[in-house]
């Protein structure tokens, strides 16, 4: 399922940004440039969220949560 809201939302937001951006930063090219930046940041953020356990394990940044022992047995 394509997440249209995640794709069209930033585009609409950047199109709306043309109303309050200065003259030099308006236009179709600037709009899609900002939109590309938004998608890039979102892509990077999703990558970080997806692979954070591996990154954390590789770099040993934070102690890994210990698995809870099953009670009884």
């Amino acid at each position: 399922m394509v997440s249209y809201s995640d794709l069209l939302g930033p585009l609409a937001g950047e199109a709306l940004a043309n109303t309050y951006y200065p003259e030099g930063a308006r236009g179709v090219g600037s709009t899609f440039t900002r939109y590309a930046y938004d998608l890039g940041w979102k892509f990077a953020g999703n990558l970080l969220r997806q692979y954070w356990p591996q990154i954390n394990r590789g770099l040993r940044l934070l102690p890994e949560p210990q698995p809870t022992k099953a009670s009884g047995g």
Partner: protein
Amino acid sequence: MANCRMLLPPVRNRNLRRPHNRMPAPCKAQWPAACPSSDCCWRSRWCFPTSQPTEVPSTAGASSSRQPTTVLRCPPSERVGWLSLWPGDQQSRGIRTGGAGYGKRFGADIAGATSANMFGTFLVASLTHQDPRVLCEEAPQFQGVGKVRRDAVGDRAE
């Protein structure tokens, strides 16, 4: 590529090779006026050169030969890549530097994030019926992420 042509005091060639002598020199136009050319850009009120200054031979005659014209190449924003995020490049786009420019850019970013959030999580999601409630109804196997999924899997395992 257009150049920022500036009149600088005469310098010896060996000084040009020293890094501290490669400091950018002010453009002719007074800040915050418009840049002399489209390839010229303000960076903190200074013209930003890409490479070392190169002296060009004077063509105005012997009288001005003692004051050579130094050409400082200013990079256009497309060529400097991530440097276009610098406030100085925003200056060439009409956004001033300094505290006021920072505040304006900060406010513009906040406004952009808010509008994108409104469109992305409310308006477009409602029109396309992709809000989380609909997703939960259409895809009951979706159990969320993080703690919700761990709880669900843990409950099943137990």
